[in-house]
């Protein structure tokens, strides 16, 4: 279980990004986080990952306070976080290499993901020779390669076309069903938030506070996107964030 207790963050330059945010994510649950641009979603995710210290409050994972990076947590950064000096293959493998997986295992996982994410033929390309969406897929592959029990994702599909996006959403659902990882997903796409998040946390404008937490039991199934409940939920969220339909 992940627990955010009253966390706030004021950056060194005085910007107050988030303010006393509290909520919980059950083990094996997918939780979507949405909110206006600049409200502190990325900040929040960095704090969850243990990479950024909150100026107030604390994060607990399985009852332990998070104050450094945990091996069972993987994070996908909003700007992909790829290393310009590593090829696609190396970028995907780097996490496994760091955790000292055997070479065979690394090769297998990387090969599998490259195929699954449609990156064949670009194994030896450097990031600057990739398209935006391809970079995003590499970042996704890198996180999945770790088979983490907690996955923090910052707008992981924002640069993808509708079709690829649906494919990857389905892929993510499949993986979640197989591994029942706990997933925190920051997204600005309401449909995505509803499709995936059993719990949807809606934040206010900066400084981000919790505006509403919406239960969404139907989520986490591929078929959900064609069901009436899905469309209704989308409408509900849209209303909460202030978009009239």
């Amino acid at each position, binding site marked *: 279980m992940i627990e955010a207790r009253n966390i706030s963050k004021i950056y060194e330059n005085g910007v107050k990004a988030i303010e006393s945010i509290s909520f919980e994510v059950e083990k094996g649950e997918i939780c979507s986080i949405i909110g206006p641009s600049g409200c502190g979603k990325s900040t929040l995710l960095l704090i969850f990952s243990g*990479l950024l210290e909150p100026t107030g409050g604390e994060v607990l994972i399985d009852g332990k306070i998070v104050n450094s990076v945990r091996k069972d947590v993987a*994070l996908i950064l909003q700007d992909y*976080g790829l*290393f310009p000096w*590593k090829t696609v293959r190396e970028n995907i493998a*780097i996490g496994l290499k760091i955790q000292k997986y055997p070479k065979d295992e690394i090769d297998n996982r990387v090969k599998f993901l490259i195929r699954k994410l449609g990156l064949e033929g670009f194994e030896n390309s450097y990031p600057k020779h990739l398209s935006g969406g391809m970079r995003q897929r590499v970042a996704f592959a890198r996180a999945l390669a770790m088979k983490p029990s907690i996955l923090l994702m910052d707008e992981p599909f924002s640069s993808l076309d509708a079709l690829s996006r649906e494919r990857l959403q389905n892929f993510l659902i499949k993986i979640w069903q197989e591994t029942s990882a706990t997933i925190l997903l920051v997204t600005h796409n309401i449909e995505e938030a509803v499709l995936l998040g059993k719990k949807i946390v809606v934040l206010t404008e900066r400084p981000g506070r919790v505006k509403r937490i919406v239960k969404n039991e139907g989520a986490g199934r591929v078929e959900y996107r064609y069901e009436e409940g899905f469309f209704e939920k989308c409408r509900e969220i849209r209303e909460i964030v202030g978009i009239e339909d």
Partner: protein
Amino acid sequence: MSGDKGDSGNRRLIAEFKGYFLSALTIITVWSLTSYIVSSPALPQPFEVVIYFLIKLPELSKHVAVSLFRVVYSIILALSISIPLGLMCFKDSADRIISPFIFLLYPIPHIVLLPLIILLFGIGDASKIFLIAMILFFQILVTTRDSARNISEYYILSLKSLGASDWDVYRHVVFPASLPRILTAMRISVGTAIAVLFFAESFATTTGLGYVIMDAWSRADYKSLYAGIISMALLGFSMYIVLEIIEKRLCRWV
């Protein structure tokens, strides 16, 4: 996807060669003209020097070999200490210890410490190599440190999110991100090493290009002086080319 760089690569090579040829020609022409105008024994005509150089080549090449050994050894010594130390400065805690030493010790003219070096290392090759290495050490340290201090937090976060240890951060981010600047530092250090050779080879040796040049200079034997300079330039030039090849290998991603 298959690289069809062969052709364009060849064309680039030819263009580069042309560049070197033309600039060598320019240098020789300017030299020749200046020599003609000033007409002083301190600046002989290039062709005289080149002929002299070719005649003395067998003898000079022995000195080149000795100098090459000293320079390469010093560079390796300097690199192997200054790069790890400089990269460590990426951490504030390490930088707070290392950087005051750099600030206080770098601006000292290290050449003046020669008496001290001789006191500690004697007059053999050890003190020559130490002298060159010490000067390079600081130059490379300053560059590496600056580059480590400039690494974007973003890459660090990215790697740390994968559970990276400090060592992983050095290996996978700090080092590769600093590599282009380290290579620049190495280029600079080739020049410096060659400059410092003079001091280093002005004591307790009668071999090496530094000695050849110093000796020629003190004998006012200008043809020999310039032949020595040409040898040094060629030595430096080939080290440059080697660095260029290393850079092409290591920094394909730039």
